[in-house]
């Protein structure tokens, strides 16, 4: 689905990504974990066409998309749910969702939009209740739901989520992650960037660990959860300590 080879991205003279290679196969959920500033968001923004790479390849469904404009990437079937949600605050929920369907209209699939809207409401019933409300007045969790539902309106083959759990209550995060599972079950592929490494790896099939712009570790999500280095750096200490922490 997505294959990245030796990707390099620079902001000015500073390299944000150094020869990053990774792949996401059809139907997978892949998690990208790492500390702040490791380059996770940069990687997603580059795939989405919001940042131009300095070198390397981004192959999406066999096509080199590095340097394509964002709207072209979306049209090819790769949608980003941006960090901080970025809903259109002054527009109602329904209009936000219809904006997400822009490429569907452009593909001439106007007829499918109605069904996709119903699907979005099935996934997040709260959005249907608030269809007429301005997106800016929603709670953080609802805005995140909206951002995700909006991205799905484009019927993407690959959904990239940037920090969906940021600033949300644990219960809301649980709902969101359940929704991600549903989305995958319905046929989409998911690339997930998360600070909440434990939750992300529990959800994912595979994972990559990014450190200062490099991939330092990759493997099945299970293996990463069991890896001592990962536990120490991202999961809050030794496995025994963590377990004690959970059941005091």
């Amino acid at each position: 689905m997505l294959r990245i080879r030796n990707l390099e991205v620079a902001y000015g003279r500073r390299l944000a990504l150094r020869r990053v290679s990774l792949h996401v196969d059809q139907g997978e959920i892949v998690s990208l974990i790492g500390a702040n500033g490791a380059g996770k968001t940069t990687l997603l923004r580059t795939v989405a066409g919001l940042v131009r790479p300095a070198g390397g390849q981004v192959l999406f469904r066999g096509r080199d998309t590095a340097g394509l404009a964002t709207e072209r990437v979306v049209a090819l079937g790769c949608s980003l749910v941006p960090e901080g949600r970025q809903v259109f605050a002054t527009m109602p929920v329904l209009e936000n969702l219809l904006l997400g369907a822009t490429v569907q209209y452009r593909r001439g699939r106007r007829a499918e939009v109605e069904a996709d809207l119903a699907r979005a409401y099935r996934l997040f019933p709260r959005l249907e209740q608030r269809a007429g409300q301005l997106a800016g007045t929603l709670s953080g969790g609802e805005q995140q739901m909206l951002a995700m539902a909006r991205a799905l309106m484009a019927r993407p083959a690959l959904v990239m989520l940037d920090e969906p759990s940021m600033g949300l209550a644990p219960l809301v995060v649980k709902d969101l992650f359940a929704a991600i599972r549903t989305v995958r079950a319905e046929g989409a592929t998911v690339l997930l960037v998360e600070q909440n490494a434990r939750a992300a790896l529990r959800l994912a099939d595979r994972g990559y660990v990014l450190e200062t712009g490099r991939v330092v570790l990759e493997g099945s999500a299970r293996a990463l959860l069991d890896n001592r280095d990962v536990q120490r750096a991202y999961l809050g200490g030794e496995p025994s300590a963590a377990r004690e922490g959970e059941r005091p």
Partner: protein
Amino acid sequence: MPRARHLQLALLAAAVVAVQLGADAAGKPFWLTQLTMAAYGGLVVIGLCLFMGYAGQISLGHAGFFAIGGYTAAALTTADLTPRRGAALVELAARVHLLTLRPDLYGGELLTVRPWPAALAAVALAALVAALLGVPVLRLKGHYLAMATLGFGTVVSAVVVGTEGLGAADGLSGVPPFELLPGLAVAGGAEARAQNYYLAWGLVGLGMLLLLNLVHSREGRALRAIHGAEDAAGAMGIDAPRAKLRAFVLSAAFAAVGGVLMTHYTGGIGPSEASVMRSVRYVALVAVGGMGSLWGTLLTGTVLQFLSLRGVFGSFDDAVFGATLILVMLFAPEGLLRLELPAGLRAALARRRPPPAEG
């Protein structure tokens, strides 16, 4: 939603009739002349409102597009082609009925382009210039467009003043009436005053209908999304540069239509119509009406332009619009109709008051 729009347009029609009856009853039928001109200025302002309020961009060159429209129409309908009879292009134009013979002031005959093809050419030229200007500039975000259009406006203004063929500082006059439909002509003159008033406002109603439908369509939704967050709009698959360009070209075309009709109505056009100060005025009118409110812009635009045309502001005319822009930005950034003066004043006063002494 469409019903609400139709109701609004019906209200506009009622207001237009009421104003005409009111002006008659007050014994001031000549007001209709300024109101007709305000209507053509209104076309410029609502088109600019689409671009500023909905697409979130600023153009300081709309007087330039108005002038391109007006001057092209004036030049084509007044330039005598008789000496060029025989030239292949002129003969071809004559054969396809683009030309007309009409008497000039001194009893001679003029061979000129008919108003309809001249108007179409004028609007097409303005749209083309807008596209050429917009393609490179609208790929950039931020205020580059404002700067580029300011430069464009300055160029148009300088060209107009410096070109003999366009009448230099005198402008062009002797522009004939524009027969839009048989028996329905855009022309000055007291005898057709009411008819022209209704014609102008009918055209404004048509323009409003078009823009309101656009704003409430998918295209309009995309524009509002770009206004809100351009990156996020791109992430929706919206081609932001192209959407902005379309809005820019359309708003330039509105300005050009306003220019063409105003020129035929007043019988001429001068370089002051192309001045940068005029562009600032249009921006001020959109700001006063509330960015993103077509009806607010039309209302305040009409009132202020009417007052200006009546000469209420005297020689402070341009200063009034400049000051208006400052005041609106300070106290009513949402527009005069959504003014929260107490809050705005309070904030301004609070800033002036010395900080309370610490105890």
